[in-house]
């Protein structure tokens, strides 16, 4: 299926958000995730099922003012 991860379109067979993060080598306790504009808590990533066309955001801490 086609997913949009941080604005980039890609093909993935990941069934859940945690599988997708693993496949793309996103790891670390500092990541925050959202699917289709809704926050997905760390503990819910393994049960968050993905569908064709889902928009996923993976954010991490960055310098800011």
């Amino acid at each position, binding site marked *: 299926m086609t997913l949009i991860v941080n604005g980039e379109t890609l093909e993935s067979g990941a069934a859940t958000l945690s599988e997708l993060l693993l496949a793309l080598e996103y790891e*670390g306790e*500092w990541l*925050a*995730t959202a699917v289709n504009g809704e926050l997905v808590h760390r503990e819910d990533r393994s049960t968050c099922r993905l569908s064709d066309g889902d928009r996923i*955001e993976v954010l*991490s*801490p960055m310098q800011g*003012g």
Partner: protein
Amino acid sequence: MLELYGTRVSSRLLLGTARYPSPAVLAEAVRRSGTEIVTVSLRRETAGGRNGGAFFELIRELGVRVLPNTAGCYSVSEAVLTAKMAREVFSTNWIKLEVIGHHDTLQPDVFGLVEAARILVGEGFEVFPYTTDDLVVAERLLSAGCKVLMPWCAPIGSAMGPQNLPALRAMRADFPDVPLIVDAGIGRPSHAATVMELGFEAVLLNTAVAGAGDPAAMAEAFANAIEAGHAAFQAGMIEPRDMAVPSTPVIGKAVFS
């Protein structure tokens, strides 16, 4: 001591973490400033990237409290989602709420700001709104549940210093019990001292320190100016007057001719 949402800190300087020449310079500036609160942001991580991790570790090692921001958000929904994601990362209910309304000036969209503040307060956030110096907006933010206000004194990064002192003075007078933090537009320590002399509780800075020739030394200079301004406000300053007033008593003056 400064109290923000029940948390007491001794430093009245809040420091941003952007645009430093290196992480080491940032760390040194934070130490020399004596700040206990730094602002951070959230951005897209690259697949397999470790950018956020390195920065996360740096911030953790500094041992300071984190005030995440929603910088760059132009809509209520973006700002609310970013705030929730920041809470997930930093395990804090604090959020520096920015809803930007104008591309050139980065002026807050005050209508969206009030709406986003109300939503976030309802979600248990402790909101630090980056706002203008408008009193009506300030009242709406307080009604929405904000317990701290962060008015700009000039556009972000402009270093122009306070552009509307009467407005800041009016805000101080109107909300005597609300912690007021000047956020954005400070360029030099004298600007910071000036707003502290008005009775503001604290100053949030970034570019003026990060862009200085020696950021760590400038951070310390700002810390001193902020303390001086605060001490002056507490001590009670005299009012200016049009005419000269001799400092030395005239009585007892010797007559030589």
